[in-house]
């Protein structure tokens, strides 16, 4: 195995361990422990103590820490206090809505963001560039959930193309994924704007390089030069794409609330307000693991795509 893969692998494991350790301590810093909440208002001190022993909170912190990582390795995230069933099952049930929404939003922002960014960068100062500047400025200044309101008012209330709220009782099916279009657009717009800004900057940078001047001077068609520029500029966008994709799993929280979609976002919000700590912890663990993993994969992809980065710094 090449050396750079090994160091990258080690850094992935260390980051994940550090993040999961932070989550462990953060959840134990929450006000009122799980046993007090499970016991309810009229539980006696002895009953709470029995509960504490049953769910393992009476043990020493190192023992809890060991049990926490032991559980993680077996995909055991404990039981939801409110729903009284394994958190893993809750997550598996809610994941499809969030994944579909995140996937749609990601694809949309990718096409829109890269398209606008490259177009703007190839002709700086032109009409496409100015339109892109206007779009990115506005898109980054408006609050996401408020943009959702506007979409609901226009497309759901006035035009009636979409339902105002949520999914039908049948849940997420091929037909009802139509309902996810407005939320996906809401999510995609600000992300596309960020992507467009970076893509534009990367393209502008490449335009100034020597090989572009050579290609132009030997008479290559502008379209061909544009292709060269794009293929060299785009790997530089990978880290932002990873931040975006990895962040979408929890980035949907506000939008799920606006559109009433029962995904991971509503799950963690419900967990916070009901003080259902195992659920909050479970969603957090899943989200940070995916986030760290996607960012790490993007780093690796960049290393594969650009051998210059492999040299030890």
């Amino acid at each position: 195995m090449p050396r750079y893969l090994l160091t990258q692998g080690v850094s992935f494991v260390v980051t994940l361990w550090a993040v999961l350790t932070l989550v462990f301590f953060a959840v134990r810093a929450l006000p009122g422990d799980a046993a007090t909440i499970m016991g309810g208002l009229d539980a006696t001190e002895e009953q709470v103590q029995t509960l504490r022993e049953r769910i393992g909170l009476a043990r020493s912190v190192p023992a809890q820490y060991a049990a926490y990582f032991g559980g993680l390795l077996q995909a055991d995230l404990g039981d939801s206090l409110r729903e009284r069933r394994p958190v893993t099952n809750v997550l598996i049930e809610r994941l499809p809505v969030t994944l579909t929404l995140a996937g749609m939003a990601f694809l949309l922002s990718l096409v829109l963001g890269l398209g606008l960014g490259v177009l703007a960068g190839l002709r700086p100062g032109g009409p496409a560039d100015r339109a892109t500047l206007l779009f990115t400025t506005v898109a980054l200044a408006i609050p996401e959930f408020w943009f959702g309101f506007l979409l609901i008012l226009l497309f759901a209330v006035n035009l009636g193309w979409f339902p105002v709220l949520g999914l039908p009782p049948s849940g997420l099916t091929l037909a009802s994924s139509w309902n996810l279009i407005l939320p996906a657009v809401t999510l995609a717009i600000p992300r596309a704007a960020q992507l467009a800004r970076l893509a534009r900057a990367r393209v502008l940078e490449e335009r100034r390089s020597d090989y572009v001047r050579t290609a132009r001077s030997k008479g290559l068609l502008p379209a061909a030069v544009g292709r060269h520029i794009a293929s060299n500029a785009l790997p530089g966008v990978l880290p932002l794409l990873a931040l975006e994709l990895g962040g979408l799993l929890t980035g949907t929280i506000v939008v799920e609330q606006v559109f009433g979609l029962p995904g991971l976002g509503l799950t963690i919000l419900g967990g916070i307000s009901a003080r259902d700590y195992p659920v909050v912890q479970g969603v957090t663990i899943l989200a940070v693991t995916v986030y760290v993993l996607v960012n790490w994969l993007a780093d690796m992809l960049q290393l594969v795509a650009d051998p210059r980065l492999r040299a030890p710094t």
Partner: protein
Amino acid sequence: MSRAWIGLALFVLVAGSAVLAMWLSPHDPLAPNYRNLYAGVSGEHPLGTDGLGRDVLSRSLAGGRVSLTIALAATALTMALGGVLGLLAAGIGGLTDTVLSRFFDALLAFPGFLLILLVVAILGGGSLQTVLAMGVAGSPIYFRLTRAFARAELKSEYVTAARALGATRVRQLWRHAVPNFLGSLAVQGASTAATFLLVEASLSYLGLGVPLPTPSWGNVLQDARSYLTRQPWAAVGPGLFLAAASLSFQFLSDGLRDLLDRRD
């Protein structure tokens, strides 16, 4: 230059309306009027009234006061937190540097909004808690920036000269290094303030930020969501205020950067 001026003008407008909210407001933002619920747009109520008959324009103006204060306080906190620890890491180096750097790396490994949500879940909702949560979540960027800038400056020749003249580490950092990158931090700071405005609004919208009845742009919009179809203006108005404020910070940041670039 033009963007900086637009930003400044917008900022003066938005901040001015927030500061003067008490005198500009046509009505008491907290006074209900049960005989005039969900009123539409009129001369009396330019943005209508909400579900308790409160004037939406007055609530937006008062909300701006709260939202702007929180965003600016959180920006100051996050810059101070990241900045001071970044200076410590660069100035002391060694184990202090390693421990601090790893800690902030771990914070950066969280998706930003999730981190803020977790801190709010631990501390409970509220204005002060929102400031603390955003202050913590935003700090890694400032830690990294300050540490990198300070390390570069400490290696420069003029700092070496100051050291040769007997300047202490604190003096080298504070008198010599910091003034050289304060401008770049300010550019980032204005951009962070724009983001924090939106984050505070999202938190308050979710009911985890500024608690009712104190109005903030976020919780005025939360109210508006529940009767969105009946009284759309109640949602559109405060949102425009919020977008204008966020835009003004973004423009100030861009304009400031242009100014600094020209100087270099």
